[in-house]
């Protein structure tokens, strides 16, 4: 069996590991547009903040490809995929590579809001390693005084954190009414907001940027919907990510918000698999097919894809969205349907002391989502219960109590841990 993997991030690496669990002989070819050794995308903000060295950004040790006998084509782009001939075409190398199993793990690409489409010297993306290498250089050369970050989501806030740690003045422009809208409720977001304001970050909410003021240095001001003008001398875009589809595939892959995959990570074309941010698989909490763009999901999907590509039938039970993001000393963790407010859902929450907020989203005696701010030490247990679809009725009264632990859980759960 020979395998071609497009991509070099989490899902692609997990694909290699999955294949090698089953097939130690087959030839693996890995193609990446980026020239770097596999690195961890979420670490870009840590790199910028000086918390991690370039070497330690590597997602796997330097000998990973050699040890797993992976032939790499780095800095190469796949320009076409032909499922008839089972080949992919590479540029600029200008070669056709044939595959028996193909894994598409091309990840995502940052969304550029229309108003920012243009060539501005001081407009930076905040998505991949090259972005932050550029950004880092610019910060040193241009010494900006005010940096505007477009987007108050996960990436935006991690970018803001790294800028604060570099002693930069940061302004976050969020089009929505509060921070981290995709994973957080208003109450939790307020705590995060309060904490970040204390750290000197400025915020604008509910007003998208409608126009730019430009000058010699590029963007010099942002005009918001209510005509407020926010002066800045550098702009970071962190407005979200969408699936980065590979070039059109002859015959066409079925897509929705990502490439549709079944529980074996196979696409609508047999022999072609997809995993990670580019794929749209089963969300175990929402119980529907939808993109869950998180690293752990990419890893799980990639590994399952690898196993199945190598012939071991392994079904995924779906993935769960969960995050842990420390922001300038404040811990934040969310999982599952953390923003769910539907009628059937009952929130159970606890606040304080200090910047502590814990909330579970319950429905039909199950935990469907959680938001923990400040103290996240027991979040894992609750997430474990979510994964197990555990019936919490016998210990519901102890949920979120300060001594909640194994002792309140049913025998079979305890036995598993002992």
């Amino acid at each position: 069996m020979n395998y071609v993997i497009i991509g070099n991030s989490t899902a692609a690496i997990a694909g290699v590991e999955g294949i090698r669990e089953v097939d130690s002989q087959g030839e693996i070819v890995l193609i990446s547009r980026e020239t770097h050794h596999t690195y961890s995308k979420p670490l870009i903000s840590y790199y910028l903040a000086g918390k991690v060295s370039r070497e330690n950004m590597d997602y796997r040790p330097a000998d990973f490809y050699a040890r797993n006998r992976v032939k790499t084509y780095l800095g190469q782009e796949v320009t076409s995929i032909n499922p008839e001939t089972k080949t992919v075409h590479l540029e600029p190398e200008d070669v056709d590579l044939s595959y028996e199993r193909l894994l598409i793990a091309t990840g995502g690409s940052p969304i550029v809001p229309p108003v920012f489409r243009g060539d501005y010297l001081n407009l930076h993306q905040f998505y991949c390693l090259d972005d932050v290498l550029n950004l880092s250089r610019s910060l040193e050369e241009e010494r900006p005084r005010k940096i505007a970050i477009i987007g108050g989501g996960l990436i935006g806030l991690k970018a803001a954190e790294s800028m604060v740690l570099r002693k930069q003045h940061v302004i976050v422009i969020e089009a929505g009414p509060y921070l981290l809208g995709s994973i957080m409720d208003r109450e939790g977001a307020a705590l995060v907001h309060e904490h970040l304001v204390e750290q000197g970050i400025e915020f604008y909410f509910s007003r998208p940027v409608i126009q730019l003021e430009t000058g010699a240095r590029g963007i010099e001001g942002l005009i918001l919907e209510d005509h407020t003008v926010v002066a800045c001398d550098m702009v970071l875009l962190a407005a979200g990510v969408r699936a980065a589809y590979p070039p059109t595939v002859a015959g066409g892959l079925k897509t929705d918000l990502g490439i549709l995959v079944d529980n074996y990570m196979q696409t609508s074309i047999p022999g072609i698999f997809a995993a990670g941010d580019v794929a749209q698989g089963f969300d175990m909490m929402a119980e529907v097919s939808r993109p869950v763009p998180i690293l752990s999901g990419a890893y799980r999907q990639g590994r399952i894809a690898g196993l199945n590509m190598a012939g071991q039938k392994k079904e995924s039970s779906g993935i769960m969205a969960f995050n842990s993001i420390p922001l300038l000393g404040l811990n934040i963790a969310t999982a599952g349907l953390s923003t769910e407010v539907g009628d059937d859902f009952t929130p159970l929450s606890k606040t304080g002391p200090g910047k502590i907020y814990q909330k579970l989203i319950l429905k039909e005696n199950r935990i469907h989502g959680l938001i923990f701010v400040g103290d996240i030490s027991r979040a894992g247990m609750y997430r474990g219960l979510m994964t197990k679809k555990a019936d919490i009725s016998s210990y519901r009264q102890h949920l979120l109590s300060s001594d909640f632990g194994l002792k309140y859980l049913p025998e079979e759960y305890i036995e598993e841990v002992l």
Partner: protein
Amino acid sequence: MKKVVAIKEYCVACGLCEVYCATVHSRYPDSVLKAFKLSPQKPVSRVFLEKSEQWSGGIQCRHCKDAPCIAACITGAMYRNRDGIVLLDEERCVQCSTCVIACPYGLIKESDMGGRKVLLKCDLCYQLAESPTCVTYCPNEALIWVEEGETL
């Protein structure tokens, strides 16, 4: 692989597993007294004595086959060594705490080492030739080190 199993029927809830675990992972692995008296920060255990009215037991990382913490680790710092032990490379860890929420048993904990946050988990004392320290020092043999699936 061999794992530590807690036998709740014989756990006496003394907490010596925690004391010795904290010691062996401190700067003074051979002396409880020095570990607790001389370490700049109170030594921290990676095994946790869980107790209720009905039972108690020293619990720790299960070194899961399909480990959620490894899948979730954003840096690759969480890895499995050749012996199957799930380890955290503290050099590479950026303290994002994703493993804390990934672990379904809540067995990876954050600890404050004098202003520096670190994440700690059981390493099965893989650097020692003998059994894990908690097993060695369990006074009632309520922690045992056995091959997986081995009956008691």
